[in-house]
């Protein structure tokens, strides 16, 4: 009797009824509404972001692990499981959700004023309003402390100038959380995207995350009242706290892409006859399948462990680095190995392998590159910072 990779680990037994119900709902949604469309979205490099946001909002996915303001208030583990199912569809879909819930909404929820929360969070939870998060700049990615975007005081107002780069959801956003240098260190600003001087041209010609909107944010004398400043965020720890949230989701998410690759490959190898027997019946194929299953299952156990730590309020950023480094690295390795088993068929959009593999290149880089996570872990182990 054939078993699925994760059934072999019986990881379902580590979930409670509510977590399974949330997981099943997202899986059904992705299977029915997302998967049939993906190849076309990917080929066209376009997604119906607004419609998707509304549908995801109706399910309760957006900001699901936050409390109040119309958010569902689930456990962090349930949020991770939802990310996994979304990314089993496509990393782009999960990116939309990560940026909305863990970056933009979380920034408002954690660092915002009561008025800012009331104004934006309920509409962002339903998907009526889309958010983006502008930290990275053309010359500052892994080292955001050097950012050049500046907010200067002008009377009671602030005036923002600068450019942000690689910003997910940028061109479709209603609100941008923008981080800028001030005389008082890095501060965050809530920028309605209709504000004069703000524009968000889309970045084209991507070979990865084609089913996701990626943009530049141009801030050209954007004038904002002081009430647009996130009052509770001071210094780089503001944006970094948000990144830790989003990275947590990716620990699970990347496994979704890997699972989809592995399940696709298992089905393909069972059907594909080669040298008069199924490809799945060859020892070399089975060795690949066994090794990949092992990494998927280990990654899932790690993710669930970190999820439980987070729900207990004990998860530390360097532990998030352990999960992000391992699970994204293994996911991309699985996607590539699966591609070899499908041969030529694996390079098309008819199968999800190359799409996932290409997407995971971005996932490997954003939310802290693998190298940055190695440095975080290295510092935790040795007490020596080796970033610079």
């Amino acid at each position, binding site marked *: 009797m054939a078993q699925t990779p994760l059934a072999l680990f019986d990881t379902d037994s580590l979930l409670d*009824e*509510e977590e399974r*119900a949330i997981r099943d*709902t997202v899986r059904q949604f992705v299977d029915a509404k997302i998967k049939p469309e993906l190849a076309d979205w990917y080929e066209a490099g376009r997604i119906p972001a607004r419609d998707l946001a509304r549908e995801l909002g*109706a*399910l*309760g*996915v957006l900001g699901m692990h936050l409390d109040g303001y119309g958010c*569902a208030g*689930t456990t962090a583990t349930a949020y991770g499981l939802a990310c996994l199912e979304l990314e089993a569809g496509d990393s782009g879909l999960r990116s939309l959700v990560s940026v909305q819930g863990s970056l933009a909404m979380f920034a408002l929820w954690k660092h915002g004023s009561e008025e800012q929360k009331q104004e934006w969070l309920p509409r962002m939870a339903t998907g009526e309003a889309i958010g983006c998060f502008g930290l990275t700049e053309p010359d500052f990615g892994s080292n955001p402390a050097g950012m050049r975007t500046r907010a200067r005081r002008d009377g009671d107002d602030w005036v923002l100038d600068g450019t942000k780069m690689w910003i997910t959801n940028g061109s479709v956003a209603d609100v941008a959380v923008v981080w800028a240098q001030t005389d008082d260190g890095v501060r965050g600003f809530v920028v309605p995207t209709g504000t004069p001087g703000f524009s968000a041209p889309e970045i084209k010609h991507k070979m990865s995350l084609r089913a996701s909107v990626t943009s530049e944010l141009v801030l050209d004398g954007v004038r904002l009242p002081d009430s647009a400043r996130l009052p509770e965020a001071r210094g780089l720890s503001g944006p970094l706290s948000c990144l830790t949230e989003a990275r947590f989701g990716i620990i699970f998410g990347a496994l979704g892409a890997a699972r989809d690759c592995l399940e696709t490959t298992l089905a393909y190898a069972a059907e594909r006859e080669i040298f008069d027997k199924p490809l799945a019946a060859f020892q070399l194929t089975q060795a690949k399948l066994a090794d990949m299953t092992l990494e998927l299952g280990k990654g899932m156990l790690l993710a669930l462990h970190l999820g439980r730590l987070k729900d207990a309020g004990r998860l530390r950023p360097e532990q998030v680095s352990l999960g992000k480094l391992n699970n994204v690295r293994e996911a991309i390795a699985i996607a590539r190995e699966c591609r070899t088993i499908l041969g030529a068929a694996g390079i098309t959009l008819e199968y999800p392998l190359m799409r996932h593999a290409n997407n995971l290149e971005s996932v490997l880089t954003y939310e802290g590159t693998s190298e940055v996570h190695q440095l975080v872990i290295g510092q935790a182990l040795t007490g020596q910072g080796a970033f610079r």
Partner: protein
Amino acid sequence: MNIVVCVKYVPDATADRKFEDDNTVDRVGVDGLLSELDEYAVEQALQIKDKQADDTEVTVLSVGPENATDAVRKALQMGADKGVHVVDDAIAGSDALATSLVLAEAIKKIPHDLVVCGMASTDGGMGVVPAMLSERLGVPGVTLGSEISVEGETVKIRRDGDASTDTIEGSLPLVLSVTDQSGEARYPSFKGIMAAKKKPVETWSLSDLGVDAGSVGAGAAWSVVESTDARPPRTAGEIVTDEDGSGAKALVDFLASKKFI
């Protein structure tokens, strides 16, 4: 207004389904779930509730084994208000007649103006329980509704037949079954999933309903499954070769004979 939705817990149709030695469906070896066709019934009940905007209450009712609470729970996650699960060892192996008896006796104990069922179960697939219920409850029954609206005491139901579309009006109380064309069932929202944990589910036995155990179950069944065989593999199908221009007619005749057109 009070709505009762009858839902069945069935083996997952996408999994490998098997029969027990006594030719009843194996309900232990496979994952079960709320019958997909009953999700449409839950959806219609919830849509009526949404439109009524009063204190309309939707109760889901399931007769089935221990695990059938999963089906009740799913309907509660979708938005139903409370659940009733009738479970009793004596019910195992019941046919449609006995099932409808148990359902009817349970419904009598629940305030109800409208009883909504799916068009058939995805396992047995007989589709007779709704009609039997209306008979047992002594209220009008309308089956296979594809569009439902409720105004005051009147229910308007559209039925799409092969040859005609009928619109039927009935007055409450009423038993209704709805088709898979009545409107896509909603996904449970995360808030719904979390709220469902706190919604009440009552568990009743046959004696709670005053139903004699001897009148239900495999022993009392009016029909018996003698043997089962797996469906033979698909055959190659029929190829129509058009040599003299008769191909189109042959195709149309085929489609008409299968009631596709």
